[in-house]
């Protein structure tokens, strides 16, 4: 399996407090990789390193190497804007912009300088279809995105991310603010996205990790404890700590 992302000795500090400790892992292409672990273990911090989202956090310092398709993303001349177009991100809380549904999806293309109305329309339609939202909103693309339900908003955020045609999609607990039905829809969507995209999902929900992912990484206090095929992690973990966490006998 070709590694899309290679992380080597990645450490990260917030104001001198270490949040990640020498994480080394290779993330395979066109697979779903789940990151699990207790709260505060650095899961979100880790995936935010992959599109340099931590750059905008004050007092954050990163050491180590992250390469995507062989290109180091933390080297001095790396283009952050280009990187973020390649590595899309869906956040924990649905964060649609206070514009219309259409403008939300078109946003990424517009900031990239694409203004052709016809192409934009196609992109919006295609992205909404891919995110399984098109049927629900086709008649009201001009409505405010805020009028959608939480689950629809999250799918809109996924559509928005798909519109910029990324290769990698990072999902930071995308279902934690959603009800079970909306969650199920998004999980189905993640399985479909796997065909075309490399997906990395942070989740608190062990069943969700087991259902949607091919690979699972277990982080604990900033350290990568165990990483492997999901089935193996869940059925036969090598580390005692992993087993404790997965079976819920933690601490």
């Amino acid at each position, binding site marked *: 399996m070709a590694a899309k992302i290679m992380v080597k000795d990645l450490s990260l500090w917030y104001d001198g407090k270490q949040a990640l400790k020498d994480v080394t892992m290779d993330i395979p292409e066109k697979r779903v990789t789940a990151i699990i672990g207790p709260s505060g273990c650095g899961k979100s911090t880790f995936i935010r390193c992959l599109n340099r989202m931590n750059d905008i956090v004050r007092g954050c310092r990163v050491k180590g190497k992250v390469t995507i398709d062989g290109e180091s993303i933390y080297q001095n001349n790396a283009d952050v804007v280009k990187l973020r177009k390649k590595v*899309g*991100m869906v956040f924990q809380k649905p*964060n649609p912009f*206070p*514009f219309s549904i259409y403008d939300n999806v078109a946003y990424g293309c517009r900031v990239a300088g694409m203004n052709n109305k016809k192409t934009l329309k196609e992109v919006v339609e295609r992205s909404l279809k891919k995110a399984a939202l098109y049927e629900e909103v086709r008649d009201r693309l001009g409505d405010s995105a805020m009028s959608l339900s939480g689950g629809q908003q999250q799918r809109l955020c996924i559509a928005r*991310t798909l519109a910029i045609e990324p290769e990698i999609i990072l999902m930071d607990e995308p279902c934690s603010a959603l009800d079970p039905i909306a969650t199920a829809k998004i999980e189905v969507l993640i399985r479909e996205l796997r065909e075309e995209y490399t997906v990395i999902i942070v989740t608190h929900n062990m069943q969700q990790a087991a259902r949607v992912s091919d690979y699972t990484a277990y982080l604990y206090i900033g350290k990568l404890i165990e990483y492997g095929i999901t089935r193996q992690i869940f059925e036969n973990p090598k580390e005692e700590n992993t087993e404790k966490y997965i079976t819920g006998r933690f601490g």
Partner: protein
Amino acid sequence: MVKGENGLWVLRSWLTRSKLPAMVALIFSCGSAIIGFTALGTGHHIPIYQLLFLMLGTSFLASGICSFRRGAKNKRKIIHLLAFGLIELIIAFSASYAPSTIDLWGLNAAPYSNFLFSFGAVLFGLIGVSLAIGPLYDFSPFGNQKSAYLLLIIAILIVLYPLAIIIGQVVINGAPGITWEFLTEDVRNLGQEGGIFPAIVGTLLLMLLIFFIAIPLGIGCAIYLEEYASGRFSFIVRIIKTSVTILRGVPSIVFGLFAFAFFVPLFGPSFLTGGLTLSCYALPTIIRASGEALKSVPQNLREGSYALGATKWQTIRRVVLPSALPGIITGAVLGIGEAAGETAPLLFIGTFTGVSFPPSLFDRVQALPLHLYTLFGMRGAWDVMQNAWAAAFVLLLIILVMNAIGLFIREKYRREF
């Protein structure tokens, strides 16, 4: 125990159960506080003070006695009620015997002056309210909630009360002076005749100038301070923000002096100088309000934009600014309205008469607040008060319309996160 149809006993049992005396005490206290407050505010003499204190005292005594008989829980409060009633009665009676002035070793004092009486009425009224509420008060959480709401409503009413008086005075005194002639002609005969057309035009033009100078500058500053500089130069930013706050507190007359020393040598006593000075005055408000509006845009919207490959400027321009727009508009309207109503910054540069429409930026300009100030300065000597009230009415109207427009735009662009 049945004592038969003894009339006295019926009265007594009614008194001990009834909440009426405490209610009367409450109403009297409220009345006393409000009348006293009005008298303090307007300076009118209200001749019923003694009666007021008499009534207060009686009702307090009555409510105290009733509560005492009912065996209320809070005995101390009841004793307060009784003592308080006595004090008020003493005041009421002694007032008529007191000399109108007292000579204190050459220092003349009027112990029962209108001010003291009004002040006393407010003070005793408020204390009375707090005491009389005791026997009536429902000490359950629900009761507490109700009284908290009541206090909040009272706070609002107290705030609105002077506002209503101000607007009412201006409308009542000013509205009759509004005629077509007044609105369309220049001032004649030292303000006794003619109108304020040039002053209206001047104020509107000044507002326009402030709009074009202070708003871009203010919003630009706010964006830089909140979005760009806050991470990198946090120490300097803190100094700048503190300076802006201090600037906000600088008296407007100081801005006038500053303009006289700085702008007048450059541009003369002109329209441009006035606009620049008032812009300086409006800037801190606009910067503060815009900054707060920018700060209140949720961080996750910014992150969402960055994650889609937007640059910092694109994020600010397309996501942050539109989201902050309602707040920014509010700040801008407040700033312009505040500045347009200022007199002091224009004292050295404005003019009272002569110009109807400034031919260029470098000519003198009239302004409503300044006009009002000048007219007011002539009162007594010349018959100008009617025109002064009318000018005040027009000024108030302009500022209110301005605020209404701001509110309308804000509501139109209001966004939810």
